[in-house]
């Protein structure tokens, strides 16, 4: 079997019924898709299969033989992060980071599909993804902003206008 993973052609030797998640993580060492439940319940293993977000833990690899797989590593790099990735940083949408790869893939698919900044629509798009840290608010903010903007400030140290100034100026 063959897979194109993040633009690279890979041979696959795992058994045909091996979940795509296990092929990516254990055979190909692509570790960004996470095994939060291994039962299709948490969304942390979400990858794009031929451009569509799919739970890789539920897909036998034989069912996607020859497909193009994109994980979050394939969407952007630390040197060149995508708009969604920048927006997640800017809005503090990643806390522990474990659900983040799946969230970013789902958000990217949503925006690629022409999704709007309507929070209800975004909530529907990520409804299969469990985040135990954020309460989702910041994730919704990040995705909404990324529907309209492609660059986000991710490095600046700016005074937060909501905090009280402590002490004098330097």
């Amino acid at each position: 079997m063959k897979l194109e993973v993040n633009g690279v052609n890979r041979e696959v030797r795992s058994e045909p019924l091996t979940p795509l998640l296990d092929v990516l993580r254990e055979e190909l060492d692509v570790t960004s898709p996470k095994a939060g439940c291994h039962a299709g319940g948490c969304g942390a293993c979400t990858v794009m299969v031929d451009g569509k977000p799919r739970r890789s833990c539920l897909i036998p690899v034989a069912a996607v033989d020859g497909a193009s797989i994109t994980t979050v590593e394939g969407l952007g790099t630390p040197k060149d992060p995508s708009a969604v990735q920048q927006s997640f940083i800017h809005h503090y949408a990643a806390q522990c980071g474990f659900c983040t790869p799946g969230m970013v893939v789902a958000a990217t698919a949503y925006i690629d599909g022409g999704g709007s900044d309507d929070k209800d629509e975004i909530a529907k798009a990520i409804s299969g993804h469990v985040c135990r840290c954020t309460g989702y608010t910041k994730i919704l903010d990040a995705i909404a902003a990324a529907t309209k903007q492609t660059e986000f400030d991710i490095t600046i140290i700016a005074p937060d206008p909501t905090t009280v100034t402590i002490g004098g100026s330097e």
Partner: protein
Amino acid sequence: MKAVGARLPRYDGMGHVTGHTRFVDDVRVPGMLWAKALRSPHHHAAIVHMDTSKAAAMPGVHTIVTWEDVPLLEYGHLSGLGIPADEPLLARDVVRYKGQPIALVAADDEETASAAAAAIEIEYEERPALLDVRLAFDEDAPKIHHWGNWYPHFEEEMDVRQIRKGNIDQAFEDADKIISGVYRSSAIEQAPVETQVGLAVPEPDGRLTIYSCTQALYFSLGVVAAHLEVPLNKVKIVGGTVGGGFGGKVDTATDTVIALAAQKTGRPVKWRWTREEEFLASSTRGPWHMEIIDAVTNDGWILGRKMLTLHDSGAYARFSPYGLTKHSFHHTGAYTIPNLHFDGYVVFTNRVPSTAMRGFGVTSISFAGETHMTRVANELGMDPYEIRLKNANRVGDTSPNRIRYTDPSTVDVVKAIANAEGRDLEPALAGMTRATRSGEMLPPHLVDQLDTSEGSH
């Protein structure tokens, strides 16, 4: 001082969003074995017979770790404070909760390890289970431990956490009304998206490197070294990248057993729990049973509180005595009640051991205490804001354990809640501050508890 008050990016944000952050399950080392546990299928049972020989002989199985392999079988999470241990690392002759680990198989892959764990021959003699703290004190209740069903080591030798403050009998004599309530909170699984996982790697120099998802690195270090009876410098714990914890990764879950398996095999061993195991066998927030009886006056002062708390610790103590102690210190909530009679028990049941979750021991009393404040207000026909603002902690008030409050924020918080709710407080309430009590805010019953010293706590 650029960083104070500034909006800083997360140091690990870029790794998280690009998939480069390395969690424990992402660590790759050559020659790794996979572990699976044999867990108790019963809430409570004696193990009358166990034979691992057939399972150990299965192809692909490298070792099976049981209680016999553990140098120091029992080491409590509070043993470092001199408190006697009550929990074996792996069950020996009794299992006290469903999911309790009995043996760990290390094999070439997870399927083989699972099959071997299932092939271990084991015979149980089921015992009645105790699953409700309210039944733990009955004479015919199932006995969880040989010494009884509740923790006996408060202040070394007391079986109850007590607080006695002021004159509780006088308070109940002086009261216009006695208002009581019973409050119970349920167990909650912290449910991080990353399940419990650990990887132990034996190093050529004899040391062990453990990649751990623990929330408490140095704590785990001490626990592992104690069970293995090795000096601390023989164990190196690598961690800090935790896929969610919320208290559920404070107790040492995988680290010690995989360390033993790695020692025995000389190979790296990874043990990752399934989601089902996480829900079955990882520590939860404990259930609490709380009974509050308040002595109150018709104008809304709380003169005294009697309280009984039963904390469901599950099968073993772990950190529960600490959680209950915090609970007792906070049992008046954000309010000042000068006459107190508190009894709290850490009660053992055949549930999975409970542990921290977001304010260990305190969230339970916050729930009970705030609900009770509203009940008192309703029974007195009083504004729930007024009763809170009157009794709210002020500078110089003292806590149940006689800590002087130096800057309590209760008054401001209650006013902010009223504001958020769109409630216009009457001027007498709106004008209240956290300043030291005087005048109408210093009725006779609050005089003696006041600590007007400066500088002391």
